[in-house]
């Protein structure tokens, strides 16, 4: 079985994000970029499945500019076998991403697709669901545990508001990962060397999906959140209650 993992290059989770002065976007010059953390978990899960002998190839794909090669190389250094870059300089909305990924699925015919549940830059949490729908295959989102049952099915434990829910899906399927699924491995330096020799195929977005719908959303401006006013330390619970009463927040 082949596993396809879709990843995205994003501003590193720990960077204090700054909006460009003209509001046209988020500053990325000289800013540390990484694999979207949920996608890193998706890669890790695919590798673990392969290491258990349940898959024989892990292919990573991303849609992005040429710098995204760096994240694909990292994925291959972690252990992915090959990578596909669908190159574009423009931002892609979830529905478009799902359409592009569907084309890659049609080419690659994976038995399982794993992605992060959302990318931390736009927090859409839509692409895996849309992809499953377009592909007409089952989806198991927010996975915190993935288990093969042996009859071409997966038991997936999902993190939902009420707690944990375990569902069964038939393969091929789309799984999206939650934070607790696994702890991604460190990358060994020798594996970075090896990753340089692994195949990375670059395709042009317009060739992959010529019939793609145009931008459906236009971003008008970006704005930083209003700075929160400073808190005050209170000495006692009584003082806290008094302040809340004064502000009319409690009766």
């Amino acid at each position, binding site marked *: 079985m082949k596993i396809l993992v879709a990843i995205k290059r994003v501003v*590193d*989770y*720990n*960077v*204090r994000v700054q909006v460009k002065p003209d509001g046209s976007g988020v500053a990325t010059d*000289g*800013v*540390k970029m*990484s*694999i979207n*953390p949920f996608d*890193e978990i998706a890669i890790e899960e695919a590798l673990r499945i392969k290491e258990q002998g349940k898959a024989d190839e892990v292919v990573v794909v991303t849609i992005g500019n040429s710098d995204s090669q760096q994240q694909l190389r*990292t994925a291959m*250094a972690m252990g992915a076998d090959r990578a596909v870059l669908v190159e574009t300089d423009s931002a892609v909305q979830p529905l478009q991403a799902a359409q592009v990924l569907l084309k890659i699925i049609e080419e690659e015919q994976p038995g399982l697709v794993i992605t992060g549940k959302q990318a931390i830059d736009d927090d859409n949490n839509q692409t895996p669901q849309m992809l499953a729908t377009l592909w007409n295959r089952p989806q198991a989102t927010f996975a915190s545990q993935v288990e093969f049952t042996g009859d071409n099915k997966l038991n997936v434990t999902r993190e939902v508001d009420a707690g944990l829910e375990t569902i069964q899906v038939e393969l091929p399927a789309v799984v999206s990962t939650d934070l607790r699924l696994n702890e*991604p491995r*460190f*990358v*060994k*330096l*020798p594996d*970075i*060397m090896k990753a340089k020799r692994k195949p990375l195929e670059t395709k042009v977005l317009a060739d992959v999906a010529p019939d793609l719908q145009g931008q459906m959303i236009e971003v008008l401006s970006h704005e930083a959140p209003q700075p929160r006013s400073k808190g005050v330390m209170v000495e006692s619970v009584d003082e806290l209650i008094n302040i809340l009463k004064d502000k009319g927040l409690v009766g």
Partner: protein
Amino acid sequence: MHPDKLSSLLETELPGMAWSMQPSDLEKFGQDWTRFHDPQAAVVFFPNDIKEVQKIIQVANRHQQVVIPSGGRTGYSAGAVATAGEWVVSMVRFNQISDFNAIDQTVKVGAGVITEQLQHFAEEHGLFYPVDFASAGSSHMAGNIATNAGGIRVLRYGLTRDYVLGLTVVTGAGEILHLNKGLVKNASGLDFRHLFIGSEGILGFVIEAEIKLVSPPPNQAVMLLALSSLDAVMSVFALARGTLQLSSFEFFSDRALKHVMSHRGFDNPFEDLHPFYVLLEFDEDEDQAMHVFESGMESAWVNDGIIAQSIDQAQQLWQYREGISESIAHYTPYKNDISVKISQVPQFMQQLEDVLAAEYPDFETIWFGHIGDGNLHLNILKPESMDTAAFKTQCESVNQHVYGLIDSFAGSISAEHGVGLIKKPFLPYSKSAEEIRLMQQVKQVFDPNNVMNRGKVVD
């Protein structure tokens, strides 16, 4: 002084002052991170401003009472420990950051500002305060100044001393001094600021400091290398220093790693254990990092290596180094914080290994430290069955061998933790009799009645 007598004295002579004689406060504020003394403070003060500190000093002078400046109490030399009914003065209320000046790239910090608080402040203003170490979430800026704290980026950025542009202090005689006033250049005679930096509370109180911030470095990469031997540590350092723009070069032994793994529940970052590890932080440059790794492998110094792919992973790798002190804290470790010239480190470590094998055959010894600065933290762990006092005595008797060796290398018995109480008996290994006598005389100038942290550093 009897507690009742003391409290009535304080009520009459220091009216309105916040203080506590609660046993829990006396215990908490009467000690630092060392665990070799029973805390014996008579009272803990919580002054609000410089005038209150001055008043405490005046009253202490009048009654020949010893006062101890207390910061974040993360010190490793028992500098802030009360052992004989001293008055502890906690600076926790001096926690304001103010007067940020973007042109000067300076900011004022109160004595009790937590180191990490300043680091965050700098980051929020697009700047960087580079002094950092595992206790930065608790230590105070004045504590850092009073110990001239070093840490993990000294290699590139220097010590706390290099960031102090101005100091407001109250001397042991109760005089208020504004030292250097934030100037970059100031050639007007003796610069007392530098006497107060690293003075461990024996001259007076640091009340406020003007601190220099710097531009942040470019994106940093973090690499953990597994090494084949102790010799390899400095060979890899020479190689890395010539190739990478290093910010940190830290080392630790396999035993240190094992303690962190079991204490924190971490996995081994590698498949196997290796005798030594070095952690490097440097300006991101994958090709050069690879070059260091491959050359190290070819020379058989390096066995394996990891490079962080995200800031999160970089922080995880740092945990293996920064978690060491905490992971061994419950063994009441006897800490040696020693340094020699960087070029002397290999020979020194070789000879030290022999001394330790001969003198500490039954104790577990943990090696780690800021080895890129020639600074080694050698920790001796107390066997569980052994009494703390007996353990300390035995460690101190071994010191003559270890410190004798340091002396022969013209090194220091305290690289960054200070002298306090713990290292005071051994100061002659690093300072001449003349220097010690002059230190005593300097103390007298600022603190004629010897009320400031009496018994610490020098007599």
